[in-house]
């Protein structure tokens, strides 16, 4: 459909993807813009396992509005309803701002969000890598969802479980521990020491 971009992971594997997919990453986009001769972009800091996961995400998001975009601002080209019906629709309709109440857009975004939530329902290790990759490659939506995934992993745990999750030491002194228990005694179901 369009131009493709070649990406090389830190461990030397090559991934060829469409521009729309790769340009989800602002870093790749800016690198591709300035590097007009070479259409091969090296990403030494991302290894192939993670990169393929990242690209899976980007592929899904390539032709969808971002989760953050307000519905009214979604351009009509991205609306599933207007797909390929440009001929039939009146020209004024396709150029004006997209309706805030477009049901098709709403459904599409909600479906995407569902997919995203499933995508980040993975172990913390992977989320950790996705976070770093999203940060490094500056992929806004992936960052957002990875953060969501991390928050979900944290939710509902008591302090001991959190320490286990993140491999943390309990670096409070016994006196501090006592203080803390007192400090948080107002909770409905106070945590045990």
């Amino acid at each position, binding site marked *: 459909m369009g131009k493709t971009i070649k990406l090389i992971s830190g461990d030397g594997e090559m991934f060829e993807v469409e521009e729309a997919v790769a340009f989800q990453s602002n870093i790749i986009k800016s690198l591709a813009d300035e590097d007009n001769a070479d259409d091969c972009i090296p990403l030494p800091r991302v290894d192939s396992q993670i990169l393929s996961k990242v690209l899976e995400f980007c592929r899904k998001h390539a032709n969808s509005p971002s989760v953050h975009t307000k519905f009214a601002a979604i351009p009509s080209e991205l609306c599933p309803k207007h797909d390929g019906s440009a001929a039939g629709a009146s020209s004024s309709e396709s150029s004006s701002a997209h309706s805030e109440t477009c049901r098709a857009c709403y459904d599409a975004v909600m479906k995407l969000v569902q997919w995203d939530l499933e995508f980040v329902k993975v172990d913390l290790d992977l989320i950790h890598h996705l976070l770093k990759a999203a940060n*490094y490659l500056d992929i806004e939506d992936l960052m957002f969802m990875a953060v969501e995934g991390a928050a979900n992993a944290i939710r509902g*745990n008591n302090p001991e479980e959190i320490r286990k999750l993140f491999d943390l030491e309990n670096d409070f002194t016994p006196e501090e521990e006592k203080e803390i228990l007192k400090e948080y005694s107002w909770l409905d179901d106070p945590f045990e020491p």
Partner: protein
Amino acid sequence: MPISHLRVVGGGESMAMLPDEIWAHILEIGTDSASLTYRDLCALAMASRRLSRLSAEPALWSTLLAIDFPDGEKVSPSPKALYQTRFKLEKAKRVALQRAKMLFAQSKVAVSRKRLQELKLSLVREGDRLKAAVEELRNLERARTASVALNVWQPDVVRGRQKQIVEQCTVPIESRVCALKMEVQVCKQQIANFNKTYEEEKKKLGKHKQALASLEYHPLQSHFNSTPSDSNKRKRLELSSDSKLSSAAFEWDEQEKAESF
């Protein structure tokens, strides 16, 4: 704002090694989207020093205030302390409300019991009245038959006795008999009514006792019981900011209200 010194490899690094900025991001987005609750921030605070510092960030607690206590002070120098205050206040309200419910339920049981006692007394009274009426009727019947016998039988002994009975009876017999028969009817009807009301009241008492028992059995429900579900998350990701938690008002049983008046 990418942080360039991070190397992304499939190694055994712990997520705790992530820089503060990313952690702050996680906590910020987590609370914004209601994935993290006040309990989670507290759990984090109790886990380690660094997490304690990160989770104490005032902006996070401001967000929680806006979500959990939407109507009230918005600005405070220490949102975390304000949250705690609001939380304790809500809890005290809930406890008071629960106590009020209990007292109400107890009083309904007491009222029912009292009504039953009164009904019993009424039944006894009415029963006595019935007995008296029946007794009197019987006497009048005897007087009537006596006066008939008087006109038929001649022997002096018998005559003497009948005369005695007739003389003892001062009231015009027929009308009194009528009145008494009606009285007996009325008494019987009353007794039937009282019995019916008694049964109904007994059922009510049973219901009230059940309501009281369930109040006593169920511990105080937490206001923030529900954990955010996926559907809630979707809503948060939408434009509208949903106030997830409804106010702490409880619903009186509409029927109960009607019954007591």
